[in-house]
C-alpha cells in the first residue's frame, strides 16, 4: 500500500498547499515538505528487500480492458530516482521559500511543484507502462505551467510552449512505442515486458517501437536534435530549473532508457541510435555552454551535455557503462542542482544573470562562492569530487568500446573533447563570476550573502558531492549496486568505486581534459571571436515562426476550403451522394424489373411532359423570380394531379393545400427580395452545375424505373387487413397516420410547431425595408384591401370552415383528416389577412397561435397518454360505435381526438408562420405587436381580444 501512497501524497499535498498560501511562504513551504517527508519515510522500510535484489510490487486492477492497471514497483532503479526526486525536491521547497517573493502566487507554485513531484514519482514507480505514460505526460504539462510561471514574460510563455510541444510531442511518440510493445508482449506490466526482451527484439516492429520510444526519451532528456527546448525552459524560476530541468524531469528520458534496458537494449539499432545521439548531444551541449553569457544558459547547455553523456553510456550497451550512467545520474543531479541554486542566489542578489556583468563576487559573497566553486569543480571532473568518479568511468568505457577500425577512436576523442569543454565552461563559471575584476552595472549593488537558510540546500548538496567524491563506496555504493542490478535485470558486474584506480589511460584523459580546458579558457577570447562569426540561432524565434506560419497556412487552407459558399457545400453533398450511389447503380444499369412497363395513356403522358417541362423551365427561368414562382406552382399542381392519377387522394389534398400556403409564403417573402436574380455564375460553372443536375436526375430516373417495375410485397398488407378491425377506419392512410404510425404524426406536428415557434422568434425585431416598387418602374399601389376581395372573403370564411369540418370528420373513413382540415382553416384565415389586413384579422382571432399550437400538441399527447391509464402503451387507440336515438350509429374513435390535436397544431403553426412574415411588413407595424422583448407577463393582449 505504501507505494501508491508515495505517489499520491504529493498530489494530495498539491491540493492542500494552496490553502496554506494565506499563511505566508514559511507555512506553505512547511506544508509542502510534509508529504515529501512522509513519502521519503515510506520508502525506507523497503530498503532491505531491495538491497537483497528484491522488488516491491503493488498492483490494483483499473482498466483491464485497456491493459492499464494501477501497479507500482519499487526496485533499485526506481529507488535511486525516487530518492533523487524526493530529496532534491525537499531541498528545492526550502530554497524556493527564500527565492520567491511574498507577493507572488506561491500557492500555485507549490501546488504545481508538488504535482510535479508526484507525477515524477509516478513515472519512476509505475510498473505499468501505460500508467507511466500518464505520469510522463503530466510532467510535461506541469513543466509547461511551471516554466510559464511568470506568465507576463514573453520568453517564459514561448519557452513553455516550446518545451510542451517538444516533450509532449515526444510523449505521443513514446505512447505509440509503448503501445506497439504492448501489442507485441500482450501486456503492459513491466515484469512481462522486461521478461519479453528477446521476443520484442525479434519482432518485425522492433525498429519502429524502438525509434518511437527513443523519440520520447530523447525529447524529454533534451537530446540532439531536440535539445533546443531546454535552454529556453530556463525562463522558469530557478527552483524549477534546478529541480525539473537539471535534476529530475530531464532524467525521465534516461530513466526510461534504463528501465526498458532489458527489453530494448543490446541490439545494433539501439547501440547506434542511442550512443550516437548521446555523443552528438555531449559535444554540442558542451560547446554551446562555453559560449553562453547567461549563467543559467551555461548551466542548461552543460546539462544537455551531461545528459548526452549519460545517454551515450547507456547506448554503449555494456554493463559497466550502465553502472557509470546511473552513477553519473546521481552525481549530475547533486552538482547541477546546487549550481542552479547558486546561480539563483546570484541572480537573486545581483538582479542579473549575465556573466559579462557579474564579476568578482568573491568579495561580496564568499560563502556562496565557495559552494559554487566546489560544485563547479565537480562538474569539471576535479578529483575528490563525485563528478570525477563517474567521468573517469565514462572515459574508461569509451575506451572499452569496440568499434570497427578507426571508428574505435571516435568515442575516446569525443569524450576527451567534451571533457575539455566541460573544464573550460566550469572554469568560466568560477572565474568569470567570482573573480575577473569588478562587477559591471549590477542592478542590485552591492550584492549580499543570501539569507542563511537559502544556502542550506546548496550546502547539503555540495556536501553530498564531496562525500560521494571521497567515500563513494560507503555513500552510494549499495544504492548504485541495487540500481544497476535492477536496470540490467541481472546482478551488476564487479566494479570498484575508488577515488583512484591508479595511473591509467582514463586518468590521462582526465588530465588532458583538465589542462586542455584551462588552456581553452585562457584563450577564450579567440574562441569567442570564432564563435561570434556564426549567427546565434534563436530556436525560440524559429519555433514561433514555424508555428505561426503553420497557423497561417492552416488558416489559409481552412479559409479556402470552408469559404462560406453554400453552393460549394451543397455541391459536395450532392456529388458525394452521386459518388456513393454510382457504383451500385452502374452495376445495376438501366434495369426494367420483371413486372415490366404498363402501357402509357396519352393524357397522363402529356401532363407528365408538362410537369417535366415546367420543372426544367423553372430551373431555366429562375432568374425571373415571379415567373419561376408561377412555374413551380404549376409543378405543384401537376404533382397533386399525379397523386390523383395514382390513387392517393389524401396526398392530393395535402399537396394542394400545402401548395397554396407555400405560394402565399413565397409571395410574402418575395416582396422584400429583389425580383430578379442577376447572372452571377460563370458559364463554366453553369455547365458544371447542369452536368451535376443531369447526373442526379438520370440517377433518380434509373432508380425509379427499377423500383417501379419490381415485384413487391410489404408490411402494408397488415395495415389493409387491420385498418377497420384494429383502427376503426376505412381510410387506411389516415389510420396509419393517426394510429399505426401515430407517433410519426406526433413528431410531424411537433416539427410544424417548432418551425412556427422558430420563425416567430427569428423574425422578432427584424425589420426589412421592402423595395419601393416592383422593379419595373411601378411603385406599389396604395390601396391595400380591395373592396371586392374583402366582401367575398367574409362569407368564404364560414363556408371554408364548414368544408374544413367536413374534411376533418370524414378523415378516418374517407380521404381527409386533421392535416388537410387544418390547412383549409388556415388558408381561409389567411384569406382574411390578405383581404382585410393584418391588424383587423389579428383582432378577431380568439386564441393566440402559441396557445393553439400548444393545445394541439397537448390534445395529441393526452390522447396518446390516455391509453396508459388502461395499461396499454402510448398512443393505443380505441373506438366504438354508439347508437343514438334519431341520429343513428355513430363512431367515436380516440384517434379523432388525436386528429383534433393535429388540426389545432396545423392551424396554429401555419398561421403563425405566415403571420410572422406578414408582421414585418412596414404597413403592419402601425399596430403595436404584443411586446416580445419585455419579460414580464403581457396579460393585456390575452384579454384584449375583441369579440365585437
Amino acid at each position, binding site marked *: 500500500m505504501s507505494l501508491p501512497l508515495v505517489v499520491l501524497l504529493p498530489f494530495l499535498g498539491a491540493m492542500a498547499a494552496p490553502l496554506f498560501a494565506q499563511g505566508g511562504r514559511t507555512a506553505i513551504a512547511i506544508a509542502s515538505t510534509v508529504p515529501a517527508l512522509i513519502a521519503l519515510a515510506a520508502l525506507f522500510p523497503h530498503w532491505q528487500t531491495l538491497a537483497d535484489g528484491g522488488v516491491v510490487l503493488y498492483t490494483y486492477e483499473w482498466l483491464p480492458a485497456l491493459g492499464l492497471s494501477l501497479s507500482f514497483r519499487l526496485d533499485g532503479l526506481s529507488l535511486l530516482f525516487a530518492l533523487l526526486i524526493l530529496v532534491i525536491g525537499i531541498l528545492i521547497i526550502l530554497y524556493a521559500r527564500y527565492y520567491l517573493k511574498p507577493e507572488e502566487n506561491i500557492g500555485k507554485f507549490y501546488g504545481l511543484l508538488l504535482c510535479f513531484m508526484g507525477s515524477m514519482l509516478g513515472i519512476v514507480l509505475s510498473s505499468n507502462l501505460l500508467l507511466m505514460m500518464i505520469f510522463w505526460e503530466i510532467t510535461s504539462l506541469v513543466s509547461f505551467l511551471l516554466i510559464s510561471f511568470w506568465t507576463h514574460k514573453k520568453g517564459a510563455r514561448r519557452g513553455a510552449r516550446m518545451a510542451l510541444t517538444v516533450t509532449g510531442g515526444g510523449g505521443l511518440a513514446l505512447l505509440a512505442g509503448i503501445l506497439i510493445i504492448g501489442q507485441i508482449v500482450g501486456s503492459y506490466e513491466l515484469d512481462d515486458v522486461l521478461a519479453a526482451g528477446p521476443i520484442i527484439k525479434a519482432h518485425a516492429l522492433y525498429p519502429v517501437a524502438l525509434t518511437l520510444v527513443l523519440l520520447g526519451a530523447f525529447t524529454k532528456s533534451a537530446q540532439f536534435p531536440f535539445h533546443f527546448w531546454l535552454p529556453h525552459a530556463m525562463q522558469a524560476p530557478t527552483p524549477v530549473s534546478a529541480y525539473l530541468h537539471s535534476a529530475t524531469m530531464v532524467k525521465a528520458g534516461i530513466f526510461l532508457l534504463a528501465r526498458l534496458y532489458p527489453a530494448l537494449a543490446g541490439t545494433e539499432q539501439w547501440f547506434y541510435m542511442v550512443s550516437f545521439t548521446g555523443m552528438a548531444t555531449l559535444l554540442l551541449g558542451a560547446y554551446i555552454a562555453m559560449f553562453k553569457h547567461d549563467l543559467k544558459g551555461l548551466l542548461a547547455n552543460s546539462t544537455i551535455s551531461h545528459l548526452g553523456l549519460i545517454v551515450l553510456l547507456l547506448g554503449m550497451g555494456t554493463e559497466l557503462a550502465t553502472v557509470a550512467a546511473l552513477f553519473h545520474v546521481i552525481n549530475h543531479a547533486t552538482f547541477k542542482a546546487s549550481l542552479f541554486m547558486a546561480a539563483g542566489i546570484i541572480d537573486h542578489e545581483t538582479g542579473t544573470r549575465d556573466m559579462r556583468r557579474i564579476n568578482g563576487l568573491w568579495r561580496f559573497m564568499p560563502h556562496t562562492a565557495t559552494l559554487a566553486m566546489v560544485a563547479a569543480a565537480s562538474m569539471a571532473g576535479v578529483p575528490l569530487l563525485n563528478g570525477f568518479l563517474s567521468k573517469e568511468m565514462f572515459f574508461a568505457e569509451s575506451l572499452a568500446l569496440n568499434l570497427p577500425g578507426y571508428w574505435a577512436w571516435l568515442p575516446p576523442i569525443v569524450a576527451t573533447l567534451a571533457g575539455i569543454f566541460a573544464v573550460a565552461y566550469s572554469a568560466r563559471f568560477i572565474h568569470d563570476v567570482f573573480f575577473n575584476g569588478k562587477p559591471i552595472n549590477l542592478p542590485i549593488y552591492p550584492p549580499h550573502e543570501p539569507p542563511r537558510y537559502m544556502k542550506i540546500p546548496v550546502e547539503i548538496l555540495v556536501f553530498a558531492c564531496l562525500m560521494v567524491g571521497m567515500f563513494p563506496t560507503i555513500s552510494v555504493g549499495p544504492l548504485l549496486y541495487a540500481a544497476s542490478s535492477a536496470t540490467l535485470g541481472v546482478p551488476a558486474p564487479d566494479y570498484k568505486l575508488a577515488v583512484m584506480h591508479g595511473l591509467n589511460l582514463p586518468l590521462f584523459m582526465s588530465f588532458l581534459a583538465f589542462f586542455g580546458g584551462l588552456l581553452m579558457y585562457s584563450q577564450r577570447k579567440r574562441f569567442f571571436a570564432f564563435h561570434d562569426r556564426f549567427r546565434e540561432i534563436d530556436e525560440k524565434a524559429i519555433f514561433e515562426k514555424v508555428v505561426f506560419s503553420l497557423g497561417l497556412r492552416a488558416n489559409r487552407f481552412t479559409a479556402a476550403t470552408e469559404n462560406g459558399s453554400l453552393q460549394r457545400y451543397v455541391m459536395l453533398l450532392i456529388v458525394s451522394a452521386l459518388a456513393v450511389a454510382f457504383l451500385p447503380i452502374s452495376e445495376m444499369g438501366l434495369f426494367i424489373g420483371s413486372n415490366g412497363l404498363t402501357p402509357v395513356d396519352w393524357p397522363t403522358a402529356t401532363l407528365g411532359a408538362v410537369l417535366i417541362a415546367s420543372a426544367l423551365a423553372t430551373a431555366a427561368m429562375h432568374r425571373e423570380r415571379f415567373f419561376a414562382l408561377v412555374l413551380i406552382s404549376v409543378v405543384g399542381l401537376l404533382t397533386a394531379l399525379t397523386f390523383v392519377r395514382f390513387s392517393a387522394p389524401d396526398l392530393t389534398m395535402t399537396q394542394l393545400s400545402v401548395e397554396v400556403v407555400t405560394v402565399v409564403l413565397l409571395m410574402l417573402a418575395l416582396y422584400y427580395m429583389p425580383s430578379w436574380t442577376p447572372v452571377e455564375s*460563370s458559364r463554366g460553372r453553369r455547365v458544371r452545375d447542369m452536368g451535376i443536375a443531369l447526373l442526379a436526375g438520370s440517377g433518380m430516373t434509373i432508380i425509379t424505373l427499377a423500383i417501379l417495375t419490381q415485384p413487391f410485397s410489404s408490411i402494408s398488407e397488415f395495415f*389493409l387487413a387491420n385498418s377497420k378491425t384494429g383502427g376503426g377506419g376505412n381510410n387506411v392512410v389516415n389510420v396509419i397516420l393517426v394510429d399505426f404510425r401515430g407517433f410519426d404524426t406526433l413528431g410531424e406536428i411537433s416539427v410544424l410547431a417548432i418551425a412556427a415557434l422558430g420563425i416567430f422568434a427569428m423574425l422578432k425585431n427584424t425589420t426589412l425595408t421592402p423595395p419601393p416598387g416592383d422593379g419595373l418602374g411601378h411603385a406599389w399601389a396604395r390601396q391595400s384591401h380591395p373592396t371586392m376581395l374583402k366582401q367575398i372573403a367574409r362569407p368564404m370564411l364560414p363556408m371554408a370552415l364548414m368544408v374544413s369540418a367536413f374534411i376533418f370528420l370524414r378523415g378516418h373513413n374517407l380521404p381527409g383528416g386533421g392535416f388537410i382540415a387544418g390547412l383549409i382553416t388556415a388558408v381561409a384565415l389567411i384569406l382574411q389577412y390578405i383581404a382585410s389586413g393584418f391588424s383587423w384579422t389579428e383582432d378577431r382571432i380568439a386564441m393566440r397561435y402559441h396557445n393553439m399550437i400548444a393545445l394541439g400538441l397537448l390534445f395529441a399527447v393526452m390522447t396518446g397518454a390516455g391509453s396508459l391509464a388502461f395499461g396499454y402503451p402510448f398512443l393505443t387507440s380505441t373506438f366504438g360505435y354508439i347508437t343514438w336515438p334519431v341520429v343513428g350509429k355513430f363512431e367515436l374513435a380516440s384517434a379523432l381526438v388525436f386528429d383534433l390535436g393535429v388540426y389545432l397544431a396545423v392551424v396554429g403553426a401555419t398561421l403563425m408562420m405566415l403571420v410572422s412574415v406578414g408582421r414585418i411588413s412596414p404597413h403592419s407595424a402601425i399596430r403595436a405587436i404584443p411586446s416580445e422583448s419585455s419579460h414580464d407577463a403581457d396579460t393585456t393582449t390575452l384579454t384584449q381580444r375583441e369579440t365585437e
Partner: protein
Amino acid sequence: MELVFALAIGALTAGGVYLLLRARTFPVVLGLTMLSYGVNLFLFASGRLATGSQPVLGTAAQYADPLPQALVLTAIVIGFAMTAFVVVLSLRNLADHGDDHVDGDPKKRTPTSKHARERRPL
C-alpha cells in the same frame, strides 16, 4: 407509364439540384421545394403505381400500398415546415446583410456578366 413517372422524378430532381447550386437564396428555396416534390414522388413510387385503387377500404377492388402514402404525407408536411423556415431564414439573412447572396463572401463574388444588367418584364 413508369417511364413517364420516372422521367418526371428525374426532371424534378435535376431542376431542383440545378437551382440548389445557384448563388441566391430565392433559387435555392425554389430548388429545395422542387427537390422535395421529386423526393415525395419518389417515396410514393416505392409503393409502386396503381390506378383507381385508393387505399380506402370498400372503394376499390384492390388497394395501393398505403404506407408510402402516409410517409409522403408526413414528408410533405415536414417539407412545408422546413421550406417555411428556410424562406424566413433567407429573409432574416436579407435583413442582416441587405443581400440574398449565399455563395461565399460577397466581396469575392464572381464578376457579373453583362447579362446581369439586362432586364426583362416580370
